[in-house]
């Protein structure tokens, strides 16, 4: 019986990675859920907006680094964030002008906007690759670990290591902070409320003197901010590769939807649900069981419910089960 080692193993391989991954998903899902909540369509271009924004951040980071600027233990990319957000917001606002506004005026059905956003996705996808290329880029600097696995082993004398990366901590902190801000903004500020009003009933918002173009612009700007923050943190933790950002889209959508579309809290809950089900349900309990159980009972097999081949399948299955009981997500989302 070695509860301590079992606990550390569980923390190291399940709890910490899943929490960090969940926060990453949640940050992406916040952007998706915001667009859905206010502009009422699922924005397929969000993944590529994240990629483009991160691309800008990387370019500025390189420039800053070439000037010798650094943030000490924090990644230089944080300094570049505002530039990245500004540039991305500009691109996104231009896209809105050139593309989405037309359909808004037409009062096109949401599904048309979804398909249009796919068109935008393709274009942005290509533009990102023109700007920054397809290669994998690592742009993280600063301290890498808060707790390093080997040092942890040495200092505690345990058999199991525990790792906690700085980027993981930053992501979790950012997710919590951003969701609180967004929640506060949407529910307490005048602009936030006017955005919700616009999403509820566009015509009536007009009759209340709300300027729809302003609402739309603010929404896009915030969404760009969210996308760039999410993309940058993800890139710092893993690495930047344009294709992966596109792939991130599916779990991000899943998080936003299972949490309840339009709800910032739902995005967080959804992100964690997906992450924990992916990591937790396919975890092989062999190691933990060996520590906890007496030797005679230790499993020979992996003590794994399902192989990791099925991790997406498992998380999606869980998602479906949740939806069967809560048809509009955990936090009563919208549906158009």
């Amino acid at each position: 019986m070695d509860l301590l080692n079992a606990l550390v193993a569980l923390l190291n391989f399940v709890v910490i990675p899943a929490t960090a991954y969940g926060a990453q998903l949640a940050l992406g899902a916040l952007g998706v859920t915001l667009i859905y909540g206010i502009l009422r369509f699922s924005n397929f271009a969000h993944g590529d907006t994240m990629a483009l924004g991160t691309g800008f951040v990387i370019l500025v980071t390189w420039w800053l680094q070439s000037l010798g600027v650094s943030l000490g233990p924090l990644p230089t990319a944080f300094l570049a964030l505002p530039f990245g957000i500004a540039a991305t917001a500009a691109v996104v606002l231009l896209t809105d002008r050139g593309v989405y506004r037309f359909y808004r005026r037409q009062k096109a059905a949401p599904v048309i906007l979804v398909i249009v956003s796919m068109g935008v996705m393709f274009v942005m996808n290509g533009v990102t690759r023109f700007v920054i290329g397809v290669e994998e880029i690592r742009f993280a600097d600063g301290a890498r670990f808060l707790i390093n696995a080997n040092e942890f082993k040495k200092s505690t004398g345990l058999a199991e290591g525990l790792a906690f990366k700085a980027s993981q901590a930053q992501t979790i902190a950012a997710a919590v902070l951003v969701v609180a801000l967004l929640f506060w903004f949407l529910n307490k500020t005048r602009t936030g409320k006017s955005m919700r009003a616009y999403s509820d009933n566009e015509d009536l918002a007009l009759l209340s003197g709300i300027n729809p173009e302003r609402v739309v612009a603010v929404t896009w700007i915030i969404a760009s901010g969210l996308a760039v923050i999410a993309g940058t943190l993800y890139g710092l933790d893993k690495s930047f590769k344009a294709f992966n950002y596109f792939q991130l889209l599916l779990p991000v959508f899943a998080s936003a939807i299972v949490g309840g579309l339009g709800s910032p809290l739902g995005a967080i809950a959804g992100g964690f649900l997906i992450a924990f089900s992916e990591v937790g349900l396919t975890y092989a309990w062999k190691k933990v069981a060996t520590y906890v159980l007496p030797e005679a009972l230790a499993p020979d097999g992996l003590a794994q419910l399902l192989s990791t081949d099925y991790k997406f399948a498992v998380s999606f299955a869980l998602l479906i089960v949740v939806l069967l009981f809560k048809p509009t997500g955990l936090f009563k989302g919208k549906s158009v």
Partner: protein
Amino acid sequence: MNTRNILLFAGMAALIVLEGSTTFGGIFGGSWNTALFILNFGLLSAIMALGVNMQWGYAGLFNVGVVGFIALGGLAPVLIATPPVTEVWTAGGVGRLVFALIVGLGVIALAIVLNHRLKGRVRLAALCVTLIGGFFLYRALFDPAVEVIEAFNPATNSNLGGLGLPVLLSWPVGALLAAGAAWLIGKTALGLRSDYLAIATLGIGEIIVAVLKNEDWLARGVKNVIGIPRPVPYEVDLQASPAFVDFAAGFGAEPVVASTVVVKLLYAGLFLAILLLLTAASELALKSPWGRMMRAIRDNEVAAGAMGKNVTGRHLQIFILGSAVCGLAGAMMVTMDSLHNPGTYSPLRFTFLIWVMVIVGGSGNNWGAILGGFLISFLWLKVEAWGPAALEYLTAGMDPASPLREHLKDSAAHMRLIALGLVLLLVLRFSPRGLIPEK
């Protein structure tokens, strides 16, 4: 159909003919082979688009698990037409596998019965015991059976093999497989609405593809099955046949070209026949009181229910029909490729691209979906060549040695997606409700 629509279809046909007959400065291929390939691909896509249009256009069901149904349909040619692997039958693998599957179904059936018969806490406990116990029992039977099957010649087999029947038979079987899955899914998930149904179906699609990728015993998983039998002759056989060579010479054609064109034409004939049949059936249905009822349900489910229409039942019906059509197309596609390659089933390609076809064509309208299928297929296949060419043209004025130009040319392949996106946006800009909108 009005003149405008006929013109649109004529335009589409003209594009394909141009592709076959002229190069027009590199815009078209000038090869009947590519033209016919695009045509066949367009026919397949049109059928898939019809299936999605049934679900979305008629009934408003937001199914984005299309890829799953296409993939399931694609399983059929492998299971029906490839030669049987007698070794795993004699080794007892198949028998044990079937037994395991029957036990698995039995467990589920028992759970359903218990769910109906019992109440309250007892029910929960009984269900948990049955399902968990059943799962382990099933795995205990299933895993060794799979081991036997997968142990046989992993490089080329490790699967059940097929039944060695004619491949055409696999097309209806593909439809049935997809329909069966749709029934199961529809029973559970159709209570969901809009994007929530979307993500549920997306998940189911992913699950189906995951199973196809990872269950090697079924169809070799990601290791692919190649050389699936064809319903049409092989080009090399035609080239070797003196009769055919004479026949080709009669047209003044080279045997190689003639054989490739003839084979594609044969496929085109088969596909076209099926497309026409499906279109006729869909049009008849849509223009009848059945279609009116479906539109009513799509417009307002609550009111349709109050007016005596069984919304759930109809949703299930259309979900099954649409999925079956997708499954059929999946089987046809695998047959044409003579390759079963589950790695290829990405949602972008087989769900969202099909959706693009439906919306660009005009949802709710069969002709729209078909036109969208052809147009988007054409673009999907053609932009591959257009993108780099356009870039070449754009950068022609630049200094050949300039690093920017080099960079741009290196990225030329990505013009593919930009071009596709731009064309998509343009089409939707000029006909926001699709090329042939629903009236």
